[in-house]
């Protein structure tokens, strides 16, 4: 087990390096730059800025500096480099380090995202099981309609419709910000809607599969009550596909959704990520990409370990 984890960590570092390198060169391949849009600045000033942040050097040189550190000709920053966990300064938000931006914005996204994941699981798993156990009956059909909606509706539709209904028409929930407890309800629901529907579907199909297995018949023949059959014997087997989906889903949801955060005015990482791309805020793009990659990798590793704990047949090699 320990050997496996060490192996996975080494692989993870390699993956993150690959992601960072690719992003770096792709990002620079996109036309424009961090200081292009600001028309009021004179060419001399732009040149000075470019020089200050090392943008006048060749791309490989910039890459080496970014990865391995140094510069700081009067706070052009980049000191330790990515290799020492130093993501340098934001090019657009003066005086903020990228690490600081991530550590202040990520918790906001993670709080909303975490609640959304919880909601998706708490609703999706029972709903999927209910659908499977009532296959073909009205409950199944109602749930089917609901999940189809959940998968088909884009999140901006869910966001705007719920906002229109609950904030404008009924006026019972705040339409944005995160000042009140109740202001979490709409964004969490909007964020959870898709995974909830998806988990319900996964759960329904795997539950249908498990219920037809021979060992379920054995459990019943032992005289176990229906609830024990279901909770002890079926659930643990049926939940595996959901766990698989959970890894990337958790990483994606925790790091925030651009659309949901924009619509509900949540100062989270998702919004930050997208605006940094449009601004060509190179260091922030790099920092958030690496952070997101690391998050996905950690979650997938956790899921793989969880998998082994749930199903003893799986061998971690």
């Amino acid at each position, binding site marked *: 087990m320990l050997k496996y984890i060490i192996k996975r960590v080494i692989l993870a570092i390699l993956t993150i390096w690959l992601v960072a390198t690719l992003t770096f060169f792709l990002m620079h391949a996109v036309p424009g730059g961090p200081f292009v849009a600001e028309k009021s600045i004179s060419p001399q000033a732009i040149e000075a800025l470019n020089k200050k942040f090392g943008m006048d050097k060749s791309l490989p040189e910039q890459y080496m500096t970014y990865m391995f550190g140094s510069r700081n000709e009067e706070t052009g920053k980049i000191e330790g480099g990515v290799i020492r966990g130093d993501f340098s300064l934001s090019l657009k938000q003066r005086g903020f380090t990228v690490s600081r931006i991530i550590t202040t914005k990520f918790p906001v996204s993670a709080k909303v995202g975490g609640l959304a994941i919880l909601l998706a699981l708490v609703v999706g798993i029972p709903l999927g099981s209910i659908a499977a156990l009532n296959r073909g009956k009205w409950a199944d059909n109602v749930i089917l309609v609901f999940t189809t909606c959940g998968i088909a509706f884009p999140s901006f539709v869910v966001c705007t419709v719920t906002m229109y209904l609950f904030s404008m028409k009924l006026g019972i929930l705040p339409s944005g910000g995160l000042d009140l407890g109740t202001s979490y309800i709409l964004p969490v629901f909007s964020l959870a809607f898709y995974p909830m529907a998806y988990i319900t579907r996964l759960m329904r199909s795997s539950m249908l599969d498990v219920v037809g297995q021979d060992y379920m018949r054995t459990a019943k023949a*032992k005289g176990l009550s229906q609830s024990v059959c279901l909770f002890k014997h079926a659930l643990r087997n049926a939940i595996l596909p959901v766990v698989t989906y959970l890894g990337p889903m958790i990483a994606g949801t925790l790091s925030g959704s651009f659309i949901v955060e924009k619509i509900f005015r949540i100062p989270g990482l998702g919004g930050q990520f997208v605006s940094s791309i449009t601004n060509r805020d190179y260091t922030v793009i790099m920092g958030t990409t690496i952070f997101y990659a690391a998050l996905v990798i950690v979650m997938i590793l956790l899921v793989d370990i969880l998998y082994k704990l749930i199903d003893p047949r799986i061998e971690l090699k």
Partner: protein
Amino acid sequence: MKKKQNKETEAREIISAKPDRLVDIYHERLSFFTPAGEVKALNDVSLSVKPGEILGIVGESGSGKSVTAYSLMGLTAYPGKLLGGDLWFNGHYVNDMTERDFCKMRGNEVSIIFQDPMTSLNPVYTIGNQIEEVIRLHTDKNRKQAKARALELLELVGINEPEKRLKQYPHELSGGMRQRVMIAIGLACEPKLLIADEPTTALDVTIQAQILELMMDLKKKLDMAIILITHDLGVVAGTCDRIAVMYAGQIVESGTTEEIFYHPSHEYTKGLIASIPKLHEEEHTRLVPIEGTPVDLLNPPKGCPFAPRCVNCMKVCLDRQPAFTEISDTHISKCWLLDKAKWEAERKAEN
């Protein structure tokens, strides 16, 4: 719907069980209501098992062997429905039992072993967990006592290193070993009846013999009755006291093992016995198959269900169902040829 059914059973006179019988089934009719129509899986099945007796139920796939046994335990799968008859087991009137009653009975008074040991155990729980579960459910043993009992059971079914096996998962054991575990689970509460649903079909031949031997051995030790369901006449020959031959949801012949093997009187039974490969014959002859295909239970024929495949089929066979002819006290058979023989004998006597 349910209420209406209850009323019907009240109105009808319930045929009660005979005192010395463990299992008594009278005229059971059971259908599966599928989208394609009503599949008449059981058509007037009657059978009985005495305590400590081994009954073999023989027949081809879809003849209703398993359905009969499952209905006794309340395990009839959706969309199956009991339509008529009276089922008695160990003093319980099965027709009126609720799911709760069944839960108390299953695994305790009656246990079942399934065909495929590879898939019959839950892959995510240890062997120990799965055996102890049934012990703790039906007895008031605590965790420690249940474990001791599980250990004892594994020893009883001849598993080596039982201590180690308790902590292992099903995928770590071989097929034969898993079937032994299934038997251990079945015997955990010393049931009155063990239903073995093709217990050896999925195992290779040497393991088959071992498992059968084990079952016979345990039967003697624990004094329980066994219903052995199989399509393999070789399996029932050496083990059963009595045999019931099923075809198309009916019992077509039933008698002691000797009667069935030495005096088969139904054409289907004769065909089955003729199709057994003969090992000791000098000349190699071809196997004798029963020609034709099994009956479509969606549209069962008007006459004898075996008539379309029967080599001695008569006109009456296609038109009317035969009734049971008593050949001896223990031997009955459903075939028009027997009636014909009887009728001819009577006429001869008259002359």
